[in-house]
């Protein structure tokens, strides 16, 4: 009787686990094995779990890279503007190495015609490491070990939550596959919201810019240059997103303004030298950065701004060149000074 019990238990358990594994492999809500199965839509909304799978397994020739401020772009806007098929490679508070990791993964088995790169100033100053092997990340989706896929295959969250959501979303007629990772629909953008979510830091006497920071910025810029140089077949569209005056206020109070202005100019100088690189700056677009009604906090702007940026990428109004970048950076410096010294008083008159 005991032997029969053991046999039954092992066969039943193995069969049930294999069945569950097969369901997960077929539905594959994190796209770890394949692009959406026949009849299913690309339901993409959880960057840490899905980005790497979509980058490895989807068919595309345009890649949009960036941090959370890039999440509200609709991939279709890029497709229409540039005649390509775009997907996103998103990482919250992404370092340069984070985004270049995505890019390298994409180049493994894709020929990229376009890379749209949201160039955050903080990423240029970030440490030179990527965070995909960190504790807390689903490392089993990033490495190439088959054995640890058990964490994905036998995972009740995947089975009871992500697969049902994927199926339900696929059944929706109006599900927008281009709106991957978008969150703007859940937020409100107004001056009140921006101020409510802004924790003004105390003024720091320290100046966060020395030789160490300079070297870090130079090294990050070098990585971008290296990537652009090694892929002359790709058109790189880098763009500095417009941070609000509240963001510049916090940067200024923490003594980081000089470092960020240096980063912006250093990257501009290096990147404008390449013919396959197009660098745009929206940092000094006053109508946006001084209008807090377009923000939900100090740096996250509404999807209307995202849409507007894509339209500008088709033209040359905000294009930085070897000839004009110094002038544009000087204009940015002057604007930052004005915003942090006088414009900000509208919101914090006591200072």
């Amino acid at each position: 009787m005991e032997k029969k019990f053991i046999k039954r238990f092992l066969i039943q358990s193995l069969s049930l686990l294999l069945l569950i594994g097969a369901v997960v492999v077929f539905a594959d809500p994190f796209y770890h094995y394949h692009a959406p199965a026949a009849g299913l839509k690309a339901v993409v909304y959880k960057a840490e779990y899905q980005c790497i799978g979509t980058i490895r397994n989807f068919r595309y020739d345009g890649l949009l890279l960036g941090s959370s401020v890039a999440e509200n772009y609709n991939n279709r806007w890029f497709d229409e503007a540039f005649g390509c098929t775009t997907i996103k490679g998103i990482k919250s508070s992404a370092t340069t190495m984070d985004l270049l990791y995505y890019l390298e993964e994409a180049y493994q088995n894709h020929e990229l015609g376009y890379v749209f790169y949201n160039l955050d100033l903080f990423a240029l100053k970030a440490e030179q490491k990527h965070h995909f092997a960190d504790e807390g990340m689903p490392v089993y989706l990033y490495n190439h070990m088959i054995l640890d896929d058990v964490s994905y295959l036998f995972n009740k969250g995947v089975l009871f939550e992500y697969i049902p959501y994927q199926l339900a979303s696929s059944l929706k007629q109006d599900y927008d596959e281009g709106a991957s990772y978008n969150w703007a629909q859940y937020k409100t953008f107004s001056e009140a919201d921006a101020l409510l979510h802004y924790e003004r830091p105390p003024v720091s006497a320290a100046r966060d810019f020395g030789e160490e920071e300079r070297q870090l910025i130079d090294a990050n810029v070098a990585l971008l240059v290296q990537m652009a140089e090694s892929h002359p077949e790709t058109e790189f569209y880098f763009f500095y997103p417009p941070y609000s005056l509240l963001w510049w206020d916090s940067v200024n109070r923490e003594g980081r303004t000089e470092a960020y202005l240096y980063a912006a100019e250093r990257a501009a100088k290096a990147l404008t030298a390449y013919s396959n690189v197009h660098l745009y700056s929206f940092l000094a677009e006053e109508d946006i950065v001084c209008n807090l009604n377009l923000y939900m906090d100090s740096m996250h702007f509404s999807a209307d701004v995202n849409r507007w940026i894509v339209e500008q990428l088709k033209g040359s109004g905000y294009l930085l060149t070897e000839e004009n970048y110094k002038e544009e950076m000087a204009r940015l410096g002057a604007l930052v000074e004005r915003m942090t010294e006088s414009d900000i008083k509208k919101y914090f008159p006591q200072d």
Partner: protein
Amino acid sequence: MLFNSYIFIFLFLPISLLGWYGLNRIKKYRTAQIFLIAMSLWFYAYFNSYYLAVILGSCAINYLLSLMLDGKPALRKVVLAAGCVVNLGILGVFKYYDFCVENLNAVFHAGFTGKNILLPLGISFFTFQQLSFVIDRCRGKAPHYGLTDYLSFVTFFPQLIAGPIVLHTEIIPQFQDLDKRKWNGKDFAYGICYFVFGLSKKVLLADTLAGIVNYGFSEIAKLDTPAAVMVAVSFALELYFDFSGYCDMAIGIGRMFGIKIPDNFDAPYKSVSVKEFWRRWHMTLGRFFTQYVYIPLGGSRKGTLRTVVNTMVVFLLSGLWHGADYSFVLWGFLHGLGVSANVIWRRFVPAPKKETEQGKSGFLKRLRRFACQAATFGFVCLAFVFFRSDSVADGFLFLKRLFSGDSYHFIKYIADELSYAELYVPTKIMTMVFPAFLREYRMYVCLAILFVSMLLAFGRTTKERLENRMLTAAFSWKMTLLFVWSVISLTGVSTFLYFNF
């Protein structure tokens, strides 16, 4: 390595079992034992190879102490003193160094710096295990074992990092009994059942309750009375399912290898007094303290006052054993008070004799029993507040909130923070169909989980559920479903609470 991990279930355990029974089958008994020791050391050092040096060093010292006594009984006192100093010294350095430094700094306003030493897993368990062996050896109650047997006793992985605290007399004879090396279908089948029960206790119950507990203890100041009661009860249940689940798994794995590991829990929340609680909760720790501290101090043989003093010493040490923090000491102190109160009460009010009880109706007896159980459970829950709190101050703040009498439905806020993958679809349906009742729905889910957990904690023990049960086809399906449900719940689950002790 954790029992509740894919690598353990799908790789480590099958390899260990195949190697053990394969080598024993071809009569390579000693090689099989060495293989099991090697696997146990891999299990132990999985997270950090530095642990290996600590456990091997500790084994080497204790083994040499035992060897010193071989043929030289005159050295007993020296070896006993050396054994106590070395074992408690090792524990002191790794576990209590920083605690002592903090106290010295506080008392003498000194500026000593701590070492932030990484606490080796299960050091309290294997240290006590070896200490008991050395003491028995000095008392002439233990022989000098061969190195393979000794290492098998200390490192046998099912009980290595979180107990039960086994005695050499329980384990080594089993390794020496070659009849036990043959595969036994009954032991193996019940071993599987114990393991599945333990795994599900840990993964399905303890980790679910942990959601309520973690949120509650992160927002102590905001708790109202009902929420504080819910959080305190949830923690008592979480701790029970966590630790007894681990022990069930250990017992189950032991049985798969043909080795019987002693029980560590016997429905503790059914206890009618704090004293009885300690006969049912973490029984092997209680046995250690009774045999090696309480009885040598005089036990209950030297009058009421001395009994109370001895009891308090044992529970203060027990508190300190659980963690180098005053919140644990206070927890131990409270239990010492509870047990002492039982002792004093019994001096003045002797236990009712069976004859006098016979006259009472069954209802009255049950009512009295229920009241005692409820009072004991309440006491245990309150004391556990300090066990879980980050500091004594947090513990008192929690009690203040618990007795505040405030009620502003904070349970709903806790319930809002929790999510259960199994209930994702029903919750989505609720969101769409009855959005106005979503919060109530979440709260009732939370309370239902608590209710079911209480029923299970106050119900039959794993042993009562399993022993002598017919292993039918229907039961194999129950075990299968429980196992598979637990396996798919492994990702993202918390670590065992008792690893920190």
